[in-house]
């Protein structure tokens, strides 16, 4: 059977170094960065040399040539997710200028040179009005299909403070992507700071769960009925358990949030999509089949390589799928979600 070309929903295009952005920064910030010896945001959310950062034959910050030769075979469209943490730059104006510079760099160095690629708008989401401006700046560019937000922020994403971001995203019919990582200053767990990176890494799934709870329970999808959110690099096997739990909470506590008018799992199914890398799969494929069945995974999952990150094989999932299901997960779901 010939494989249909895939849509890869998570390819990383990282900024090699702050100097890369110099040509795109206004004079004021260029002088400021030089004079202060500012090196970029202080975020240790993904150390560059950890074993998951790059697979064999790749670099943690691949350039276009590397992505073209390693990551685009059999890929119809690849979605770029730049994880530069402008949100961790406390000076909001500098953060906004860095975001603009990154997006300009993405257009010139990636989108204009490789028609198979699409990109995500980097925004200073800790300042929603400035983030909305950035979305308006690029919203008409056909190369941008998504606004990218780090999973960890100052407040969960259902909070109304983020509404300017959602208003702008919806206006330009852009998806939102919530992606692994973020360094907002407070701890990555509900119980404070862990000692090891592996804990931050494992805990990130809980942050995604918290974001789903927040988006649904704080009514983001009632305020923005056309808002669609991709959860990228956070796993998905936890989704059935979260659906059950929050549906149960809603039965007991729905008077708490009267604007949540349908069972939470219905919002999750209609507004959320999940990339499949990392898979966090069970050792028993039958258990994975149960998970897919429980949450309706064939309509919710989107293929991703997470290039250049190094994770375990996705074959345990792909081997479970019928041809029709495989087409949905590897192509059709993302095509519809990103309006490709």
């Amino acid at each position, binding site marked *: 059977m010939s494989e249909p070309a895939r849509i890869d929903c998570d390819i990383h295009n990282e900024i090699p170094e702050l100097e890369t952005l110099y040509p795109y920064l206004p004079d004021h910030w260029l002088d400021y960065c030089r004079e202060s010896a500012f090196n970029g945001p202080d975020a240790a959310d993904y150390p560059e040399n950890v074993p998951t950062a790059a697979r064999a034959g790749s670099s943690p910050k691949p350039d276009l040539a590397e992505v073209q030769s390693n990551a685009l075979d059999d890929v119809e469209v690849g979605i770029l997710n730049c994880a530069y943490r402008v949100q961790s730059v406390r000076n909001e104006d500098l953060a906004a200028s860095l975001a603009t510079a990154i997006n300009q760099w993405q257009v010139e160095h990636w989108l204009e040179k490789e028609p198979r690629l699409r990109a995500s708008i980097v925004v200073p989401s800790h300042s929603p009005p400035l983030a909305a401006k950035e979305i308006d700046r690029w919203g008409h560019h056909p190369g941008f299909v998504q606004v990218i937000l780090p999973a960890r922020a100052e407040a969960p994403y259902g909070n109304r403070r983020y509404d300017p971001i959602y208003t702008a995203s919806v206006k330009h019919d852009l998806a939102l992507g919530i992606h692994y990582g973020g360094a907002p200053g407070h701890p990555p767990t509900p*119980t404070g700071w*862990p000692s090891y990176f592996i804990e931050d890494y494992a805990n990130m799934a809980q942050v995604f769960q918290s974001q789903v709870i927040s988006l649904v329970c704080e009514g983001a999808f009632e305020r923005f009925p056309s808002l669609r959110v991709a959860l990228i690099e956070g796993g998905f096997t936890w989704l059935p358990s979260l659906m*059950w739990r929050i549906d149960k909470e809603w039965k007991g506590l729905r008077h708490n949030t009267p604007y949540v008018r349908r069972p939470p799992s219905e919002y999750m199914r209609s507004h959320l999509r999940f990339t499949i890398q990392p898979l*966090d799969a069970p*050792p028993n494929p*039958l258990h994975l*089949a149960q998970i897919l069945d429980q949450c309706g995974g064939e309509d919710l999952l989107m293929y991703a390589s997470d290039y250049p990150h190094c994770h375990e094989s996705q074959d345990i999932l792909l081997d479970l799928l019928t041809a029709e299901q495989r087409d949905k997960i590897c192509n059709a779901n993302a095509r519809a979600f990103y309006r490709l």
Partner: protein
Amino acid sequence: MTVQFDSTATVDSGTVTSDRANGHDALYPAASAQHGTRYRAPLDTAIIATDIHIYFPTNDVLRSYLDDPWRDYHKTYGSRGFDGSHYPRAMPNAARHDAWPGDGTPPGSNLPLLQKQLLDRWNIEIGVLNPLVGAGEQRNLAFGAAFARATNEWQLAEWLDPEPRLRASIIVPWEDGHLSAAEIDKWGSHPGFVHALLIARTKEPLGRRKYWPMYEAASRHDVPIAIHFGGAGGVPITGSGYPNHYIEDHGGMPQTFQSQIISLIFEGVLKEFPTLKFVLIEGGFAWIPPLLWRMDSAWRKLGSEVPHVKEPPSDLFRRHFWVSTQPMEEPFKPDQFRQLLGQMDMDDRLLFATDYPHWDFDAPDRAFPVPLDKERRRKFMAENARALYKL
């Protein structure tokens, strides 16, 4: 292999009894969902209720157990914890409306009412008290230690002495490992105390070394460490800041438990204390299989950072952790509950709990959403707890 998503095409690994074979699928799910009646289990096993909450009826009662100078201290400065993260609860005191004694004292503070509504009503053989009085959350650690001591003496004098069906928790000032160790040493060999009680929202992840003296004492006395829903440790309940609503705080507690498990496993506590046991209370359990899968996967890739973790996290978890059942998981379909039990593979580790007197009480006959075979009922309702707590 091609397996379709339809659960009818899946076969479990053999640990789960197929109720399709028993005809339950045809009888049970749609009907009960439509009519709002929940399946009732036969009460044909012993019942050990592992999560009962008691409270001081008045501050004067608490103070009568405090020594000087803490009696005056409590009167003057009160109870001071990590504030600023309060979510108004669904119900006053998060309690059942019918659990108020009626004399102005709070639910869970009146032994005769607790006997009537819980122990006698459901023929509970043994009940484990988990007093959530805030002793461990005091910022003044010395006062917290006195508060813990007072609570432990009060449990013995006013609950265990008059009611032999009850067992107590060793309350500890957990943010100080040494003070907590002293409290465990004091009560660890007393048969009335079955575990040391912590709360899920600690100030730091529980794997951190500051807590290790407490684990050392618990190991010394073979006292399990119980971690209960709730609390406020001074940081937001999500890794992304404070949510707005009680439903998010209440529904966010499973993420807190997951973080604690990640910490306890990856920070090496189980390597240092290989016989230590943990009981997770009121956190649910459907999130356990995906957490184990994620931890195992992370460990296979990133284990070089934690060389003290020498076996898959899922093996460590299944060996060291017990889990209470309330709030019961409620999957969309009954068969999914059985799938969950199969994925967990922890039939010897589930402990029935009611959470009396709280609003989300699970009754013994209605707790489980599906019929379970007698052997499983026996284990979940009593025998797992009996073995763990040596009752």
